[in-house]
């Protein structure tokens, strides 16, 4: 089965065992506003000369989540989604993985870490590769 990337420029796929995945964002040198996906302009300063690309999102805390029991055919049901507040302070919408899909499986505030995984199929039936977060220190089901 062929795998295709969700989109170039959103995240880093590890190239070796000691390489780590991360999301590609940016941070303002002046006000430290941090954003994902990366932007050339700081929304807070409204300037185009202050943003630097950074890697972010390796760890974060779960703000909230939902188990989706209905959805488009490209997604394998049920699947979990959530908002993770990364250590850099960015709120990222993400699928969640690495636990049983129970409605109360996770605790709000739980530590999460970034993984690269299949997020859905595309119309050709190929796996679309993106990012997900999983709870830290749990055994995968």
């Amino acid at each position, binding site marked *: 089965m062929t795998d295709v990337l969700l989109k170039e420029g959103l995240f880093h796929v590890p190239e070796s065992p000691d390489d780590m995945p991360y999301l590609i964002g940016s941070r303002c040198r002046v006000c430290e506003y941090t954003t994902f996906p990366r932007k050339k302009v700081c929304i807070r300063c409204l300037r185009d000369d202050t943003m630097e690309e950074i890697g972010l999102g390796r760890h974060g805390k779960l703000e*909230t989540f939902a188990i*989706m029991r209905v959805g488009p055919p490209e997604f394998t049901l049920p699947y979990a989604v959530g908002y993770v507040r990364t250590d850099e302070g960015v709120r990222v919408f993400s699928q969640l993985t690495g636990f049983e899909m129970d409605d109360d499986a996770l605790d709000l505030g739980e530590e999460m870490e970034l993984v690269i995984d299949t997020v859905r199929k595309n119309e050709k039936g190929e796996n679309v590769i993106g990012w997900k977060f999983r709870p830290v220190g749990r055994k995968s089901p």
Partner: protein
Amino acid sequence: MKKLAREVSVIGVGMHKCGKFLDKDLKDLSQVAIWNAIHDAGIDAKRIEAAYFSNALAGLITGQESVRGQVYLRASGFEGIPIVNVEGACASGTIALREAMIAVASGLYDVVLAVGAEKLYMDDTASSIRALATNTDIDIGAGIGFQFTGYYAMSLRKYMKEYAWTQQHFARVASKNKTNGSLNPYAQYQKPMSVEEILNSRVVAWPLTLYMCSTMADGAAAAIVCAKDVANKISNQKPINLAACALRSGEVTGDDDGQKHVARDAYNMAGLGPEDIEVAEVHDAMAPGEMFRIEKLGFGSAEEVARGVDNGDFTLSGRLPVNTSGGLAARGHPIGATGLAQVAEIVWQLRGEGEKRQVKGRNSEHPRVGLTQNSGGHVEGSHAALSVTILTR
């Protein structure tokens, strides 16, 4: 933000019933709503000088991506006048109303039509579902599994943890709105439903069950917007003042509360506060969302909102009736029409034309001040478009 240069009124509103109409297209739906509004205003249709046409998804669903208004409104008799196409997902209808307001307030026109129409039920359901998913940043939203049911479910889960909101509260709100919808001839769902039936329906995304959620809908709604100083010269209808119509785009950099900011904008524009509002239509694509809308609009703290649900505060006979039309989940949510359908309901309530669902005013037979709140789409953790409208008589 400055004030409008000229006061603006709504002199006519009209709808096409919400529901599933496989034998009707956007020309048919628009025509019914537009001409209902024209007859409601009692004006000569030739007085209409410009039109704002709101629709979210016809491009993807029907293939009519360009010049939608120019195409669809010919079936209602309009040519020659400027027709402007407006899109802002679920908030499209209010954006059209706001542009009509600005056009009249500028002094360029005296009478402008705002009309929204949506056609979601087609033979190909999958294409409708795919189209609905595009009201997000598709790279980082729909493409990785964002659905609005999930967005509401995630928000509600936080309120449940922080403020002891329960699934029982959510089912009570949904049941209240089904009752209101049963009294609305334009509603998609006209069957009352018990709290138990709602709780026992299939889980879509916990805490949401199927009967708490809006479904696909076809429908249309229209409003005739007129300069206040012209209204009485061309229409015998009692004009309703468009006291405020505020719009913002999503905010995630500050305190992340665009919903409160847009409400503040509207209250400032109208010179009114939440305590003045006597009836409200709020954006509840999933009925329990009504609870956080009520909070963000300043009608009460999260704890007070939960108590209000327990006490029946938001029912037709309550302290502040909300979603008297049935709201999005019962009246129906024909996306591009929804904002204008909300406005039609408030106009009817202020005029005392709410029929079986008419609510009382605090100090008069019918309410004097009503509000609509309408949000659309999603960007980076916020609604993409946020609006609040205040109508007075």
